[in-house]
């Protein structure tokens, strides 16, 4: 049994959830900043890419200063939010929605953490031979 593949799905999910936490945190931090555009991680897409579900076509780069296309959870997967209503100062953060998403993301992070913990526990049980 390979330890990496044993923990991998949950470890990937945890990494992405943590990343999404910081993205949403910067949305909430900039809720009163004029002109700030709210962003979010396209989570399903990134996780699918991480697990090799969706083949991602890399963008060809013909010059060294072209931007690289997205790696796992890279800038390519962070998209701008479409707000329900635009605010006058150009800010697209909907604070209550962001807070709800933050809470949801934190809960899912904990869920992934629990799953990972179970895996570690069962691994320990196997090692002990109980």
């Amino acid at each position, binding site marked *: 049994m390979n330890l990496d593949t044993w923990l991998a799905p949950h470890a990937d999910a*945890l990494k992405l959830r*943590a*990343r999404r*936490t*910081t*993205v949403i*945190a*910067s949305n*909430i*931090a*900039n*809720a*009163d*900043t*004029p*002109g*700030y555009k709210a*962003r979010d991680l396209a989570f399903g897409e990134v996780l699918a890419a991480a697990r090799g579900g969706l083949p991602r076509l890399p963008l060809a780069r013909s010059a060294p200063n072209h931007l690289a296309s997205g790696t796992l959870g890279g*800038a390519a997967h*962070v998209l701008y939010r479409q707000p329900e209503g635009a605010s006058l100062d150009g800010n697209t953060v909907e*604070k209550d929605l962001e*807070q709800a998403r*933050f*809470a949801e993301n*934190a809960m899912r*992070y*904990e869920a992934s*953490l629990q799953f*990972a*913990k179970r895996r*570690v526990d069962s691994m320990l049980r196997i090692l002990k031979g109980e």
Partner: protein
Amino acid sequence: MNTRIFDIAGSAMRAQSLRLNATASNLANADSVAGDPASVYRSRHPVFAAVLDGEIGGVATRGVVESARPAERRHAPDHPLADASGHVYASNVDTVEEMTNMMSASRSYQSNVELLNTARQLMLKTLRLGE
């Protein structure tokens, strides 16, 4: 989990507390008067700007601007600060605007505290993984 979340939420808390300070100063000076329109207290507000590093980032204050709204001229010839024509100039602070500002700033501050608490708990739980 990345510890940058603490910087982000911390920068927002600093910015919002500066906004609260400015509001306190404006409300305290709402009834200040002066003898000429140039030296009267003007309401001041911080200007926020996002400090993005990649797609995430905190918020910084790019300075404090004074409101350009004209000061209110009052006829009060008995006032010790009155000018030659018997007028004093009252500050241009709008108390209703300041009260809404105060509520918005304190709510934003609170949400950032919540954010920090949640992130801290998640990190502690992650550290305990495998115990």
